[in-house]
């Protein structure tokens, strides 16, 4: 049985024509697959900022932090995610949608009408910005699953939402879900990040946590959906790096059912977090230690109990260890986690000013944003920087029960991943 019966059959859904990943014949509308028939190489800049007191800061802050890191990107992708930005709809899922054309919008909205109670649907506020062109139709929807459909599907609201994301991304031709979490949103596109930020009027939002990204892809034209951050519910991931262990990381994840189809390290990192945090219920600190393991020589010097934990982590999660240069920021509704590779081959600078924790690829971004940081430091290789907004600590959704391939499908929207989705 395919996934469709879960949400009933979708009469409006058109399966797009496509051949294979190498064949690149999906018609006019862009999808991830076109961008990444093979592994993507590239560098980037990133930032993350979190006020642990929960106080809100303007979207101008991440824009400024990214603007001074402009030359870390090449104008082929920029994006932000903000948390706490929709205080008027804190308990609604907010879908940020990208539509290739009106027909895609109609199809997706038919799906929304059928399965959700929509409390507000509106075009995403934007302004014309020089350098930004060829934008898709951008809409956002504040909604919650229809209680009857939810009951019929026997799912938690989170599962229901991710299934819907999966359906839209994979089967509604020309529609893409940029983000789908509560009280958060992703704002991304093709351009330099400060242009993208201004295009989305980011300075009019206020959030307690922001992440930003500047992209320097080396072999791809870039498209709006392919910019960072990547999201799943309220998770967002921005990433700078090239994981030299991608080959085994992806094969390792495939063993658990994830489908690594994008050829991007970011996708792999997202699945590894999902595997370790949600499915294996590892504490975030240990998940970071598994992703950027200490050296054996360090482990051998640890106290016995800690040594036993670390030895097992490395032996078990060794195939998932991200080896090679990376800096990564995982944003979630309770804060953010920033992590560097195990021998610090990519830049990551951190700072604290009162209750504000900030990380960035370059210190210039920190100096631009924080006027008097108490402390600025370079986090050691593999040492995570964790910031949590009081009372909101865990990045784990206990109400999410997705299988690995469902997660893959939701993130990528690729048909071949979704074809594998079966629910018994």
């Amino acid at each position: 049985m395919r996934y469709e019966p879960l949400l009933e059959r979708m009469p409006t859904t058109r399966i797009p024509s496509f051949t294979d990943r190498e064949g690149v014949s999906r018609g006019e509308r862009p999808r991830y697959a076109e961008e990444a028939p093979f592994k993507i190489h590239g560098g980037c800049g990133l930032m993350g900022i979190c006020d642990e007191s929960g106080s809100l800061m303007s979207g101008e802050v991440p824009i400024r932090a990214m603007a001074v890191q402009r030359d870390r990107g090449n104008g082929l992708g920029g994006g932000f995610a903000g948390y706490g930005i929709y205080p008027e709809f804190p308990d609604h899922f907010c879908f940020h949608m990208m539509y290739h054309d009106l027909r895609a919008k109609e199809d997706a909205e038919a799906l929304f009408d059928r399965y959700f109670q929509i409390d507000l649907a509106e075009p995403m506020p934007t302004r014309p910005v020089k350098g930004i062109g060829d934008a898709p139709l951008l809409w956002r929807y504040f909604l919650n699953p229809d209680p009857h459909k939810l009951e019929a599907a026997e799912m938690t609201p989170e599962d229901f939402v991710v299934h819907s994301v999966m359906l839209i991304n994979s089967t509604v031709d020309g529609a893409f879900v940029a983000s789908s979490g509560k009280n958060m949103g992703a704002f991304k596109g093709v351009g330099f990040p400060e242009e993208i930020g201004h295009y989305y009027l980011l300075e009019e939002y206020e959030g307690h946590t922001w992440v930003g990204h500047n992209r320097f892809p080396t072999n791809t034209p870039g498209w709006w959906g392919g910019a960072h951050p990547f999201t799943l519910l309220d998770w967002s991931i921005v990433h700078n790096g090239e994981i030299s262990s991608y080959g085994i990381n992806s094969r390792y994840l495939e063993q658990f059912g994830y489908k690594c189809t994008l050829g991007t390290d970011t996708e792999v990192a997202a699945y590894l977090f999902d595997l370790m945090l949600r499915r294996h219920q590892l504490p975030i600190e240990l998940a970071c230690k598994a992703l950027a393991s200490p050296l054996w020589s360090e482990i051998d010097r640890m106290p016995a109990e800690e040594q036993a934990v670390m030895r097992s982590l490395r032996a078990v999660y060794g195939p998932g260890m991200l080896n090679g240069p990376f800096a990564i920021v995982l944003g979630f509704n309770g804060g953010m986690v920033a992590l560097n590779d195990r021998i610090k081959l990519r830049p990551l600078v951190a700072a604290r000013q009162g209750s504000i924790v900030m990380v960035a690829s370059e210190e210039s971004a920190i100096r631009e944003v924080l006027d008097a940081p108490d402390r600025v430091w370079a986090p050691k290789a593999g040492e995570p920087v964790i910031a949590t907004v009081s009372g909101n600590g865990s990045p784990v959704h206990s109400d999410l029960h997705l299988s690995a391939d469902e997660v893959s499908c939701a993130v990528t929207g690729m048909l071949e991943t979704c074809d594998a989705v079966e629910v018994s």
Partner: protein
Amino acid sequence: MPISLIQPEFKVHIDYDKCHKCGRCVQQCGWSVYSFNERPIPDDSKCRACHRCVTYCPAHCITIRKNDLALRDNANWSPALRQGVWRQAETGGVMLTGMGNDKPYLSIFDHLLLDACQVTNPSIDPLREPMELRTYLGRKPSAVEVTSDGNGGFRLAEGAGVQKNIKLDVPIIFSPMSYGSVSLPVHRSLAMAAERLGILMNTGEGGLHADLYPYADNVIVQVASGRFGVDPEYLNRGAAVEIKVGQGAKPGIGGHLPGEKINREVSETRMIPQGSDAISPAPHHDIYSIEDLRQLIYSIKEATDYKPVGVKIAAVHNVAAIASGIVRAGADYVHLDGFRGGTGAAPQIIRDHIGIPIELAIAAVDQRLRDEGIRNQASIIAAGSIRSSADLAKAIALGADVVAIGSAALMALGCHMCQGCHTGSCSWGLTTQKPELTRRVDPEWGAERLTNLVSAWSHELQEILGALGVNAVESLRGSRERLRSIGLDEQTGRILGVKPAGV
């Protein structure tokens, strides 16, 4: 005696102008090539080109050449095939041989190329930065469960974490070679080297000699179909127990160690009467199916307080499904031996025509175990002609956890691959029990040479990892993305999970 049609394979040439007439060659040759009548006189027909005499001649006056006799060209009837027919017409017997398959089958390792980092990710210099080769051999849980330790830290949950794994400092171990097929000094060399290197040697099926008890933490004890030397003490002495089902050089074939090789010490170690032939049946007569194997695995585990138990099989056509069954039967590792693996003695027809290449076996087994979600439940040891650190790196990239080296280890001890192991006359004192020959190997010297070889390969593996931009071997393991094929057909590439060079 009727004349033989078989002509000598080699010509022994002595430069008598330089010859000291010292008789060293007569003394050194295990094959009795030389007689002495005022000067050494070689009998070419006995020479196996093992170079023992060449190496030890003080005058450096001996040269071994191929016997360059022309036979009429025939692409179908190679000289070797013609000689086989003549030999069998003479003897009526099965042709025996030693070492591994020497036929010119395609070498897949030689058609695989490794990657390196340029620009977008940095390569790493192993001389200046850590480069980790440590490997844990054995079953691992799919996840690690922890509980809070009450002080903001974490400890392993009850019974969680990695248990009963063997720590290897480098992902190379020594292949099983039994005491009996090889000499005691060889076994001692292997054991001493294994201890120094932080790795394992493997007893093979001939039991564990008392001289090796001090090295037992670095020894895998093997249980083969003959059950030679197996008792509860033996099982408990080793770091792990290996059930040998098959061998790459002779899949489906048992073993036969002739009575002449069963001297007092071999007989004590094997627990069989002196001078009796040691016959290993082709199958284990208590394993006729997978459920029998499971019972034996768990019998051994019960007898050893749950030491790791591995299963060695020859790489055969259906190896992936067999390996999957072995893992599900409870094995902590699967030891795959490819069709080029060596042997002390095997029928040549079997050695040269049965089994599949280790490269394909690794790829098929690793993928199958992943498809079934059980790859973490067992390690994969790959053997069957690992000839250099390049083969080692490629085997690991295809999915092996550890490689085992046998032929290369013997070569470190002097073996020149003359393929005469089955004769018991090894001039280098390796595959013989003749005391005048076995004493040629000083275990201290042997251990140093083996340690050198494995250390050298380890350094080279570190260089390869550095070029690949990773600093731990687990990041190469199974990372087929770092391999490309050149000159392999598409189907083979698909089975290997390796893209062609250029994409």
